[in-house]
C-alpha cells in the first residue's frame, strides 16, 4: 500500500454526506501507542527500578496504568465522530466535556496525511487538518483507512474552492484535475541531499549523548578512554613526529566526517525517499518518506513567502533548495519538529536552479521570476558590511598582541579577506520590487533569495540606525504571515535613503490597494 496510488474517482462514494462517521476500528491502538510513548519512561522506571522482585513489590501495579490507558483510548475512539457537510466538516469529540467543532473547507490551510511503518502495515493513516495560526491542528484524526483519508483530502481540495460547488449543481463530482508532477526526486538526488545537509551531525551528537546516559556505570566513558589511549598508544608507536601525529589526527577527523555524512544520507533517505511534488488544480501536494510516508497538501494561495537557498555544497552539485512559509500552525503538538515531520516546508529539498525557478513561475504565478532587473545596494554598502568585522578584528588583534607581541598583528591579515568578502557580498546582493513581488537576494558564499507576492505583505517599516544615517542608508522591513523566525527576514538592507523612502511609500500604498488573501 503506497500513497502514490491514483486518487479514488469519487470521494462521495467513500464519504457519504450527512452521515456521522467514526474512525478506523483499530484507531484506539494508535491512540494508546501515542499515550504510551509519553508514559513509557515512567512506566519503565516503575517496572524495573521501582523495587526488587523479592521484597514483594507488586510488579503488576504499572499494568493498571496501562489498562487505564487502554480504556481511555477505546473511549476516545467511541466518542470521536465526524460528519461531511456541504461546506464544512463537523467533528464531535471529547471524553467528558463534549465539543463540536465546525471547520469550513475553505479555511483549511493544510491537509497532512501521515503514515508510520505500523500505519502502513495496517493500511491506515493519520489525518491532520490545519488552519491559519494557532499552535494545534484544527482536527486530528487518528486514524482513518487510507482510501478514506485520501478521499477526505480530495474532498477538501474540491470543496475548498468557492467555485467548485457552483460548477457541479447536480451533485456530480467535479472531475478530479489531473495532477501535474512538478518535481520527483530519484534516489541519487536524495543521496546528494544527504551529502549536502548536516543533519547527521545531530544524530552522531545525539547518539554519543544517549550512549553516555544509557550505558551503566560510565562504561561508555571508560570504553572511550581505553580505546582512545590504545589508539593513541598504537599511533604514537609509529607516529613519533609531529607530521605523523597530524596525519593520525586527520584520519580521525576524516572518519568522523564520513560517519556524519553517512548518517545524513541515511536520514535524508528516510525522510525524502520517493519525494514527489504535484500540482492538482489549486493545491500542491508533497509526498515523501521511506518507511513512514507522509503526504501534505496546501492550496497554493496560502503560500506566504518563498526562500531559495544555495550553500557552497549546493553549488558543488549545481543544486538549490526551495522552501515556503505557510500560515498554518507551526509548532504543532508541542513537539519541536512535529511540523517539520508532517508539514510542507520544502517544495524542493534539492533541485537544479532552473527547476526551482520553473516551480516558482508555475505555482506563484510570477511569470517574471527571476527578476531581470536586480537593483544594486547603496554603493558604500560593503563598507557598512565590513565595519562590524573591522571592530571585531581590531579587538582580537589587540588581545593577540598582548600575548604574542608583534606576532599578534598578523591577525590584521584577516582584513583584506574580510574586505574581499564584503565587496563580493555587496556586489551580489540586491533587491527587486515590481507590481507583483518583492524580492531580496543576499550572500556570496551561501546565497539566499527571499521573496513574497505584494498581496501577502502585512506591514512595511522603514528603519534607520545611527550608523545608517552616517552612511546615508536605510532599510525596509517587510512582514509576512507564518515566517519562520530562524530564516532570514524579508528586508531590504543598505539602500540609499531616497530609494528606501520611495520603496516604503510605494509598497505601503500598493499593499493597501490589494485585499488580504491568505
Amino acid at each position, binding site marked *: 500500500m503506497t500513497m502514490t496510488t491514483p486518487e479514488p474517482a469519487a470521494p462521495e462514494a467513500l464519504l457519504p454526506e450527512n452521515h456521522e462517521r467514526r474512525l478506523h476500528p483499530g484507531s484506539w491502538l494508535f491512540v494508546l501507542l501515542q499515550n504510551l510513548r509519553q508514559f513509557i519512561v515512567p512506566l519503565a522506571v516503575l517496572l524495573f527500578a521501582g523495587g526488587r522482585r523479592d521484597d514483594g513489590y507488586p510488579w503488576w501495579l504499572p499494568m493498571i496504568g496501562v489498562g487505564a490507558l487502554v480504556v481511555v483510548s477505546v473511549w476516545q475512539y467511541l466518542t470521536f465522530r465526524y460528519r461531511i457537510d456541504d461546506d464544512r466538516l463537523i467533528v464531535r469529540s471529547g471524553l467528558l466535556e463534549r465539543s463540536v467543532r465546525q471547520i469550513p473547507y475553505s479555511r483549511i490551510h493544510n491537509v497532512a496525511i501521515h503514515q508510520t511503518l505500523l500505519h502502513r502495515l495496517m493500511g491506515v493513516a493519520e489525518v491532520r487538518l490545519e488552519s491559519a495560526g494557532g499552535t494545534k491542528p484544527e482536527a486530528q484524526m487518528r486514524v482513518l483507512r487510507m482510501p478514506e483519508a485520501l478521499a477526505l483530502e480530495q474532498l477538501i481540495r474540491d470543496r475548498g474552492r468557492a467555485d467548485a460547488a457552483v460548477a457541479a449543481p447536480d451533485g456530480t463530482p467535479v472531475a478530479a484535475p489531473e495532477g501535474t508532477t512538478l518535481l520527483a526526486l530519484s534516489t541519487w538526488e536524495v543521496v546528494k541531499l544527504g551529502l549536502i545537509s548536516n543533519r547527521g551531525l545531530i544524530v552522531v551528537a545525539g547518539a554519543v549523548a544517549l550512549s553516555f546516559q544509557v550505558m551503566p556505570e560510565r562504561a561508555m566513558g571508560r570504553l572511550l578512554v581505553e580505546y582512545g589511549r590504545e589508539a593513541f598508544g598504537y599511533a604514537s608507536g609509529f607516529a613519533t613526529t609531529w607530521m605523523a601525529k597530524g596525519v593520525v589526527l586527520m584520519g580521525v577527523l576524516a572518519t568522523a566526517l564520513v560517519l556524519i555524512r553517512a548518517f545524513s544520507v541515511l536520514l535524508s533517505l528516510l525522510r525524502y525517499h520517493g519525494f514527489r511534488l504535484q500540482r492538482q488544480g489549486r493545491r500542491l501536494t508533497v509526498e515523501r518518506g521511506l518507511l513512514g510516508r507522509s503526504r501534505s497538501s496546501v492550496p497554493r494561495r496560502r503560500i506566504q513567502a518563498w526562500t531559495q537557498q544555495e550553500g557552497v555544497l549546493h553549488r558543488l552539485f549545481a543544486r538549490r533548495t526551495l522552501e515556503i512559509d505557510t500560515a498554518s500552525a507551526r509548532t504543532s503538538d508541542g513537539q519541536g519538529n512535529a511540523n517539520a515531520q508532517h508539514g510542507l516546508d520544502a517544495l524542493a529539498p534539492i533541485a537544479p536552479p532552473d527547476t526551482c525557478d520553473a516551480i516558482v513561475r508555475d505555482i506563484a504565478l510570477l511569470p517574471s521570476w527571476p527578476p531581470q532587473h536586480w537593483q544594486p545596494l547603496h554603493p558604500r554598502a560593503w563598507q557598512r558590511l565590513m565595519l562590524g568585522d573591522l571592530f571585531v578584528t581590531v579587538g582580537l588583534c589587540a588581545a593577540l598582541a598582548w600575548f604574542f607581541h608583534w606576532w599578534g598583528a598578523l591577525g590584521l591579515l584577516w582584513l583584506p579577506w574580510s574586505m574581499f568578502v564584503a565587496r563580493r557580498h555587496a556586489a551580489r546582493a540586491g533587491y527587486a520590487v515590481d507590481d507583483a513581488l518583492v524580492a531580496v537576494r543576499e550572500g556570496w558564499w551561501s546565497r539566499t533569495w527571499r521573496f513574497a507576492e505584494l498581496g501577502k505583505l502585512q506591514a512595511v517599516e522603514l528603519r534607520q540606525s545611527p550608523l545608517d544615517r552616517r552612511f546615508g542608508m*536605510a532599510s525596509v522591513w517587510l512582514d509576512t504571515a507564518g515566517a519562520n523566525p530562524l530564516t532570514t527576514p524579508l528586508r531590504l538592507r543598505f539602500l540609499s535613503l531616497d530609494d528606501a523612502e520611495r520603496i516604503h511609500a510605494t509598497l505601503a*500604498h500598493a499593499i493597501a490597494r490589494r*485585499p488580504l488573501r491568505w
Partner: protein
Amino acid sequence: MTTIPISTSNVDDEHAPMTASEDHVSTPPPLPVEPAVPAPQVETDVWQPLPLRARTLATIATLIGTLIPLAIALGVGLIAADRQPLSFAIAGALLLVIPAWTVWIARRRWLRTRWRLDDDGFGVRRGHMWRSDTRVPGNRVQHLDVRRGPLERAFGLATLIVHTAGTRNSALSLSGLDFEEAERLRDTLAARAARDDDHDDA
C-alpha cells in the same frame, strides 16, 4: 475584538467606552475621508503629534523608572564604599545627570513620535537616532486593542495596539494617545477592516 479596561474613576468621560464602540461597529462603516464623518478631530493625511499630557506622563514615568533603581544602586554603593565626600559628590552628580538625560531622551522621543491615518492605513513614525516609520494598511488589520494602565487613566491617555497577521511586526503599539482619539482610531480602523472583508468575500 477589543479590550477596554473600564475605569470607574474616570466617570467624566462623555460616553461609556463599551457602548461607544458597539455603536460604531454596528452602524455602517464611516468613511474617514468624507467630510461628513462625525470625527472632526481625526484629521487624515497629516502627521499628528501626541498630546502634551503624554509628555508629562512620559517625564513622570521615566523619572520614576530611573530614580528608584538609581537611588537604590547608589545607596548600596555608598554603604559598601568608604563614604568619602568625593564619592558622595559623584553619587549626587549621577543622581542629577542620569535622570536628566533619560528625561531628555523621553521628551525627545515624545516629540518625534507622530501618527497618521490616511487612505492607505495607519502609520507611526518614531525616533531620531533610531528612526522608524511603520505602516499598517487598513485592510491588513486583524484586530485592535485599546489599553490603559493606571497612570494613563489618570492622564486620560491610552495605548492603541494594531494587530496584523504578520510575524515579526504583528503588533504595532502606540502609547500616549488621547483616550477618545484612540477609541475613534480603533473604531475607524475596525470599521474599515470589516468593510474590506466584505469586499474580499464578494
